[in-house]
């Protein structure tokens, strides 16, 4: 990727709400340049979307998150792709990746209650014929997500004026 486009991408990853003007000012480009880069990134399928980084625990609504490890057994007719299509379509699945190591797929699941998460895994995921095993880990506390630390944010103890 050309260097300029890469720097635009880096800034979007830092804060997707930067306006084209914000990005342009930081990189000495015109807003039109930035918009063209963003459009090209979107068209090429590099940038797939924009979303908020949420600390669900800070909501009183009791959203529950879980990481689910999934093992599958493939046969001549069924590959990872086939299984992935079935699983990715569930709205409860917020992230879904094929990984190396002890299990095949890593899922992130979000629902309103612990019960809803386990019901989803046992009723929607486990019955899939190729699935041989699921291990569900409930998230107990999030310290950092998508590069953003979930601390109280107030760490600047500098004097307001210093020479």
């Amino acid at each position, binding site marked *: 990727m050309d260097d300029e486009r890469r720097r635009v991408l880096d800034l979007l990853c830092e*804060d997707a709400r930067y306006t084209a003007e914000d990005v342009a*000012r930081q990189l*000495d480009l015109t807003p039109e340049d930035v918009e063209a880069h963003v459009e090209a990134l979107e068209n090429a399928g590099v940038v797939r979307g924009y979303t908020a980084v949420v600390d669900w625990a800070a909501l009183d609504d009791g959203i529950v998150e879980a990481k689910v490890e999934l093992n599958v057994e493939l046969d001549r007719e069924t590959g990872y792709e086939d299984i992935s299509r079935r699983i990715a379509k569930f709205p409860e699945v917020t992230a879904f990746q094929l990984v190396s190591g002890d299990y095949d797929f890593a899922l992130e699941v979000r629902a309103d209650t612990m019960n809803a998460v386990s019901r989803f895994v046992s009723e929607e995921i486990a019955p899939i014929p190729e699935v041989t095993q699921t291990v569900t880990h409930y998230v107990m506390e999030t310290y950092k997500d998508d590069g953003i630390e979930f601390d109280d944010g107030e760490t600047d103890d*500098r*004097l*307001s*004026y*210093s*020479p």
Partner: protein
Amino acid sequence: MSRLSERAERTPPSGIRRFFEIAEEMDDVVSLGVGEPDFSAPWPARKAAIDALERGQTSYTSNRGRRDLREAIEAHVTRYGHEYDADEEILVTTGVSEAMDLAMRALVDPGDVVAVAEPAYISYGPDASFAGGEVLRVPTRAEDEFRLTYDALERAGAERADLLVLCYPNNPTGAVMDASGFAEVATFAREHDLFVLSDEVYAALTYEGEHDSIATQPGMRERTVVFNGFSKAYAMTGLRLGYAMGPPEVIDGMNRIHQYTMLSAPTTAQAAALEALHSCDDAVVDMREQYDRRRRFVLSRFREMGLECFEARGAFYVFPSVPGDDERFAEELLREAEVAVVPGRVFGDGGEGHVRVSYARSLPELREATNRIEDFLAEHR
């Protein structure tokens, strides 16, 4: 009758004290008045400090600083074209502040004239006075982008000076100087036999080009002390660690005073500094890139507002000119828009009519602060 010495009585309170007190009473101030990085020291440096404490390294070091640290400094500064011997020509100090004070006391006799290129960091003048020197202000000008020139030295009558203090990249203006600019100053220094104190603590924060030092000009090494440190480049202000490099007899003279006043620089900070030099180059590059983006952002916003501001290429300051009196502007901006900036006159001659704006802040804060400045200007137009 005061119990204080005449020296203490004569020493003026810092020009930013009053502003600090106003800001303390307010809730929502975005401060662009900060003179230090918003980053923390790179983790390997912090860890080295923790490890040193864990191993019980809580003794003095040699007066001149740990030898391995001085050797690391010797190797580090070659990137700026400096060659100094770790044994005889480098002194590790408690920040550049201590080193500057030592240099003045080692080089200034009562009545000697110390020329200070201004606007400048606020301690040079008082340091010279404490040593009994007479301060001669050498204002630089916005039209020269605050570079020191032969003409500026001549205009100020600096030929009668014994010492010349300069700081590039500059606090508060963000100005940098290149080899051709230093060549002029070096010519003046050689012609009039000036000894030069060159504060280069912002050397690593030079954008769009390489840092240059007056000490590498012909015939200047033997008449210059170079100051650098870890505060700005490695975000280690609170660890208080700097160093001075110069001719052996000057460093020896400074060390003789240092051994009675400070004995040795903080041992924990020396451990952090050694690790910083060994493994934190990447962290410095990363911080510099972030400062550079913010610098461009702030300059672009000021240009849009119609605030005249030359393109500062060093440190983490820009120095726009403001309508009317700078001190009044800074106070009204603080009270009405809750944005803290430092009036330029605090930094001496040539600073009036400008304010120092620090961009050592996150981009969302800079965006908020510049929006507030824009609204403030619109209301007062």
